């Protein structure tokens, strides 16, 4: 158990250490010459970053520098496309695509020799031709990191580093200087809205839970991030688990709860591990427990693991699953704030929502409300993926345009292809066409154009993606994940999927498109929970913006993007063919004939449209 005084001493001591991770900052530790940060997020770990850290450590010991250099495994830096990432401070050298065998070179050349390893540095350079430091690169420059403030900066498994970033100061503040209602009022005035997708005002939710009268109440964190392509919450949990724990403690004080549950999906082993470590350390310091931080309130947190059901991201289903039951949603009202976990009033927020709380308490509601648009305050984290150069995690102020995200931060679409659409909100969201690229991203604008914020997945698509196929992909996901409790979702989405399947096979009629639209609205209006109510969105939004593609499939029996196999036929353009025979040799079904140096042809009856010939042809002579 640490006293407030002792916690403050740790903060002061560790601040000296952490200011070494500011570029150009004065190196405050006399006997330390560098900090080496290795990304320990899921993406970079998959790229073997643990081994990189081991190799760096071995090389440091070999050079005798291990006492003078700190090696830290952090959470996600965000620029996953360039991973594994290693950053060296104080100069902020930003190494990308590092391999374990590069570790020695970094230590010997850079740390010992004082010369950064040129070939591994991020390629962006400034006007003088010098490689840019990490914070100067176009990927980071336009970002505003509030929720991700500690990700890629601190060691998430060391509570002292979190303390140095004013950790657990917000909890101390609310317990010593604010009433429950003042806390709720602060959150309300900040304008924070739920980051899990719905966008409900967070302060109002807290107020409801506070107003429910009961001896037992619960605080729950929804960490069941299931949208395909979304990894915001995972990165927060992996990179800064204490910020979520502290926010839940503040929420517990505000509504009068002594127990919190974090429901996290089992597919996130690193996040689960770091949460376990963080909870353990917080208990050891007496931050969690019967007398939290010695300030007179009891609060503890238990982890509950999911088991692979997307519907559990819906709050009533999540509460069922937290109780160890089948994760089936139930009707609201009663809302969880009235009757939630184990039948008691329950406050349930998403990871990213909690990630904002300590900063609002410490910096004030006005500071938070100064960022963003009129009705959407603060920042939003997006997981950028798909056909984009800088795949990764970005945090931008609300109101940033899609263009800034895609062209500036995301570095544009690869291979010079044309941007076609962005999909937000996962299976609940919709596609934003290229014509709306200047849309300012906030809750209300996205709904107005037929998509939604969702939890933050942002998938970029180029001219090679078929929008009917994309809609079908999302619907297949929802059909698979529908829990089956209510008929509109269980059967309606299945029928909708079958109609889409007909479209992609060229067997649909024009009137099917109208039927599909009607069915979409029926499902939206009659489903029990958010999963069914939003499932038709990908179909509706593509019908709205890409109806011509649907029409091409139905009327002309053509897939303009060349994706839907039933509607594609391959042919060799005679003028371009040089008769090299590569396509013929690589065709798995011997569908191509022709003599060397003669024009080749494809037999459509045999062709399975696998695309092997296109990939091999040196002249781009094969079209579909």
């Amino acid at each position, binding site marked *: 158990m640490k006293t407030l005084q002792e916690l403050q001493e740790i903060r002061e001591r560790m601040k000296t250490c952490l200011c070494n991770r500011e570029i150009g900052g004065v190196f405050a530790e006399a006997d330390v010459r560098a900090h080496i940060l290795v990304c320990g997020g*899921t*993406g970079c770990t*998959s*790229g073997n970053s643990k081994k990189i850290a081991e190799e760096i450590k071995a090389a440091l010991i070999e050079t005798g520098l291990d006492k003078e250099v700190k090696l830290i495994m952090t959470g996600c830096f965000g620029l*996953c*496309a*360039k*991973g594994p990432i290693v950053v060296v401070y104080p100069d902020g050298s930003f190494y990308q695509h590092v391999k374990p065998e590069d570790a020695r070179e970094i230590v010997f050349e850079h740390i010992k020799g004082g010369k950064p390893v040129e070939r591994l540095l991020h390629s962006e350079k400034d006007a003088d031709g010098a490689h840019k430091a990490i914070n100067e690169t176009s990927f980071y420059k336009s970002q505003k990191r509030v929720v991700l403030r500690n990700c890629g900066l601190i060691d998430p498994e060391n509570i002292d580093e979190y303390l140095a970033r004013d950790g657990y100061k917000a909890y101390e503040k609310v317990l010593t200087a604010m009433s429950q209602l003042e806390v709720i009022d602060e959150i309300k005035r900040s304008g924070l809205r739920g980051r899990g997708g719905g966008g409900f005002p967070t302060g109002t939710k807290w107020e409801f839970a506070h107003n429910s009268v009961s001896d037992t109440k619960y605080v729950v964190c929804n960490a069941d991030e*299931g*949208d*395909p*392509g*979304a*990894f915001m919450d*995972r990165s927060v949990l992996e990179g800064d688990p204490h910020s979520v724990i502290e926010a839940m403690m503040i929420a517990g004080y505000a509504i009068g709860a002594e127990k919190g549950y974090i429901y996290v999906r*089992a*597919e*996130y082993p690193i996040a689960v591990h770091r949460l376990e470590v963080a909870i353990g350390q917080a208990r050891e310091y007496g931050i969690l427990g019967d007398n939290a931080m010695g300030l007179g309130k009891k609060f503890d947190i238990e982890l*509950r*693991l*999911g*088991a*692979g*059901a*997307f519907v559990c991201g819906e709050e009533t289903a999540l509460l069922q*699953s*937290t*109780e*160890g*039951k*089948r*994760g*089936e949603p139930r009707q609201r009202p009663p809302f969880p704030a009235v009757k939630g976990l*184990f039948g008691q009033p329950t406050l349930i927020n998403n990871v990213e929502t909690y990630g904002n709380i300590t900063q609002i308490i410490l910096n004030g509601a006005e500071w938070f409300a100064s960022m963003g648009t009129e009705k959407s305050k603060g920042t939003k984290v997006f*997981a950028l*993926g*798909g*056909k984009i150069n800088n*795949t*990764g995690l970005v945090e931008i102020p609300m109101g940033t345009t899609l263009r800034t995200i895609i062209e500036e931060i995301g570095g544009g679409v690869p291979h010079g292809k044309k941007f076609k659409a962005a*999909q937000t909100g*996962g299976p609940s969201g919709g596609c934003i066409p290229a014509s709306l690229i200047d849309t300012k991203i906030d809750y209300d604008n996205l709904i107005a154009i037929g998509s939604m914020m969702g939890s933050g*997945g942002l*998938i970029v*698509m180029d001219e090679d*993606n078929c929008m009917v196929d*994309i809609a079908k*992909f*999302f619907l297949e996901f929802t059909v698979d994940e529908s*829990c089956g409790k209510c008929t509109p979702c269980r059967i309606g989405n299945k029928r909708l999927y079958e109609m889409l399947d007909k479209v992609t096979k060229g067997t649909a009629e024009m009137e099917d498109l109208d039927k599909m639209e009607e069915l979409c609205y029926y499902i939206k209006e009659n489903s029990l929970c958010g999963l069914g109510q939003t499932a038709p969105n990908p179909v509706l939004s593509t019908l709205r913006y890409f109806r011509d593609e649907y029409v091409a499939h139905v009327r002309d029996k053509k897939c303009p993007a060349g994706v839907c196999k039933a509607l594609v036929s391959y042919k060799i353009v005679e003028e371009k063919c040089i008769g090299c025979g590569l396509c013929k040799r690589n065709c798995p079904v011997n569908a191509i004939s022709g003599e060397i140096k003669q024009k080749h042809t494809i037999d459509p009856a045999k062709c399975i449209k*696998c*695309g092997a010939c296109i990939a091999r042809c040196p002249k781009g002579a094969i079209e579909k």
Partner: protein
Amino acid sequence: MSNNFVGTAEQDKAFDEVLKELESVPGPLMKALQKAQEIYGYLPIEVQTRIADKFDVPLEEIYGIATFYSQFNLNPKGKYTIGICLGTACYVKGSGDVLNKFKEKLGIDAGQTTPDRKFTLDATRCIGCCGLAPVLTVNEEVYGKVTVDDVDKILAKYND
């Protein structure tokens, strides 16, 4: 479904301890199933029956939970589980073709295990390393930027 499943003495002992620990935990059923799967590798009906008896709930409730969640296995898995990510980012980069290649090579469908219990093939949801798309995992090993041409090489690595 397995017939007359018998666990080893160590497995049963470990599971007894788990059940004891869970006595004081509210809402213990999923935790019990998760631990059981960790210990036994899958959830034979005999193990489900023990959980039902322990917590005095009908077996169908346990079975209902075990079949609701995709991570619970009622059948044993292969030595190597190949999980091919069909998340959006991987899908748009061609992971569907990779899955088809594995199906063809192993002669099984997604969700099935080869008769020699060597490989289980799974189509998985987004595993979160979209920067490496298309991605697949073989047990804990992650393979990124996989193409159809890599399939043979990957299978060959597990040819023991």
